[in-house]
């Protein structure tokens, strides 16, 4: 009686959009980023399986926990980060309109789940006991303060216009009345800037600037724990691109699950490439310079659109 829903749930968690799909697709997204970057820099770039090879190699390496580290926090941080992102992927509308675990108000939970990895990174860096980790965590925390405001403001603008706080509601509204990327262009740009910072890509890759603080919070991580963080970076990229596609490009919606899923995957690739392109053409900002584009530009743009929505000026 209950065996079929259980099997479907298992398939969703393990195959699509869960573990197997997200690992494979995330790896391809990272490969595409590296390929774009290599081409723009006049290089050839790695083979397509490079990300999997990196993660696999890290998994079979020895994991060293420094004696100065707080062991529980050090080990728990990558796991928390990965678990949160995995749950976030199950909440994203990989079936066109529906997500694997959708419920009323899941969009808010989704945004919360995407904030958890940042805290996990801060937590891991602080408990690693390395000066690079502590400085990197401090930078990650400052960056979090900068980018969360425009991110949430633009997301809230979308929720207000869609009159819904569920993922399916947001997508449905866009399918009926056109994507929010066109209806809320300023909030869309604000979201892209904030998402770039959330992904810690250039010009906001300040928390793990390798020429300054080695790998920042990741410095002391090695072996399988580092592999978990690598995977969570991959998932984060996937999830944030998917979030951008959900909130601002929910159109078109055909009605056929397979076609909708393919369109959604195409949109994720599009956003991942946009983030990759911005990453390639920018140098890194200093931490206090990062506040300027995030608050003065992104937050201001998002605020303008929020006011437009509240005043009923968006159609």
């Amino acid at each position, binding site marked *: 009686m209950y065996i079929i829903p259980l099997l479907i749930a298992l398939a969703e968690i393990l195959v699509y959009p869960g573990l197997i799909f997200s690992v494979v697709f995330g790896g391809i997204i990272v490969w595409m980023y590296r390929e774009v970057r290599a081409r723009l*820099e006049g290089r050839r770039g790695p083979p397509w399986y490079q990300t999997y090879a990196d993660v696999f190699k890290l998994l079979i390496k020895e994991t060293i926990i420094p004696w100065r580290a707080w062991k529980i926090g050090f080990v728990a941080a990558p796991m928390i980060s990965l678990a949160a992102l995995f749950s976030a992927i199950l909440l994203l509308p990989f079936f066109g309109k529906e997500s694997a675990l959708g419920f009323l108000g899941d969009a808010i939970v989704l945004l919360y789940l995407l904030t958890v990895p940042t805290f996990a990174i801060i937590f891991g860096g602080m408990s690693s006991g390395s000066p690079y980790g502590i400085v990197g965590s*401090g930078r990650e925390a400052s960056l979090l303060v900068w980018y969360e405001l425009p991110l949430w403001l633009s997301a809230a603008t979308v929720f207000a216009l869609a009159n819904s706080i569920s993922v399916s509601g947001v997508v449905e509204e866009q399918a009926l009345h056109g994507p929010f990327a066109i209806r809320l262009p300023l909030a869309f740009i604000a979201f892209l800037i904030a998402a770039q910072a959330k992904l810690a890509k*250039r010009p906001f890759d300040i928390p793990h600037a390798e020429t*300054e603080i*080695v790998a920042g919070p990741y410095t002391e991580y090695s072996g399988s724990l580092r592999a978990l963080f690598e995977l969570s970076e991959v998932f984060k990229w996937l999830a944030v691109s998917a979030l951008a596609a959900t909130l601002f490009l929910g159109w078109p919606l055909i009605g056929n699950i397979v076609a909708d899923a393919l369109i959604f995957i195409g949109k994720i690739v599009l956003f991942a490439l946009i983030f990759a392109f911005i990453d390639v053409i920018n*140098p*890194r900002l*200093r931490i206090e310079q990062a506040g300027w584009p995030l608050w003065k530009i992104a937050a201001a743009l998002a605020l303008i659109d929020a006011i437009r929505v509240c005043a009923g000026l968006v159609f």
Partner: protein
Amino acid sequence: MEKVEGKVCSIPIGPYHPALEEIAFYKVYVDGERIVDALIKPGFNHRGIEKLAMQRSYRRNVQLFERVCGICSDAHTTAYCVAVENCLRIDVPKRAQYIRVIEHEANRIHSHLLWFGVAMHAIGFDTLFMHSWATREAIMDVVETLTGNRVNYSVNTIGGVRRDITPELAKYIEEKLKIVEKGTLYLIKAVKEDKTIKARTSEVGVLTKEEARKYCVVGPTARASGIEEDIRKDDPYINFEDFDFEVCVEDTCDVYGRIMVRLRETLESIKIIRQALKNMPEGKLIADLPYPFPSEDIGRAEAPRGELIYYVKSNYTNIPERIKLRTPTFVNLPATKPMLLGNKLADAPQIIISIDPCLTCNDRLVVVDLRSGRERIVLLQDFIRRRVRL
């Protein structure tokens, strides 16, 4: 080292660090992100080159001094050959001098483009880093075709050069120089127009003109602080007085100025190579060498990093009695401390890189007495007292 009190955290930079290719140890004391003190500790790569040089013949020393620095290898052999030629009163043929100039300036172009790539990497702009190194590949091709090698050219020798430049080769160099010029102009345009590069490098690592004089900095570091000094102009060697070029000076005194000085100098070097190819005189490649006699003299060269000095003392043998070299990094390195103070930790790598440190040429022997913890630098007198054979 001063004792630092309060809520200060010390961040080690180097000797193994992704930003610092060179093996120095910087202990940077930070209060939050602000640098309050810095401790510079070189000394990881003592190779005893001066002692080695006093056991080899003049000719073989050329190959030895090339290995002092892998990047400005030609500057080292030029300075050494000039020192020996001054010391033994050798008149070098003009054609050989012009070929030396071409290699010297090609070496400078390659060094500056390499440095620019590393500096861009320090601020996280890997795209420009790759473009700069792609441009550099053209000048590396020139050097390889001219000398047969990419790093240690071995083309200078006492009294002249070992390889000639044929007219076909000259044409090839002209073509490659066009690529380098185009690439360098593109890099200058990128640096001038990109707002983020300007935001990251302007008013960072400031070394005022007074401080620059106090620390006696040399080369592009001094020129970026508004001091107009260039050995090629001030004390022309290898016939630099024949060439028309500009000494690039910037008065911004910061990292941005150092970037602009080096990029503009690259263009000036291209100009010099073109003049040398155009006005190349005919003649011998190598002078007749005299028997050594007791004498002493110095040779100066404007290496890509600044003034390079070689001191040579000769006797009746074919082995120099004493050779002393002073590399530009040895002078510039202490100046990184005033540059670092008051800046952000995020700027530390690019400030250290901005003097173009080359520490392998820099390190001196330090003897540490483990029981008393006393450190002592071995001086010339100690060498003389302890010498076995000179």
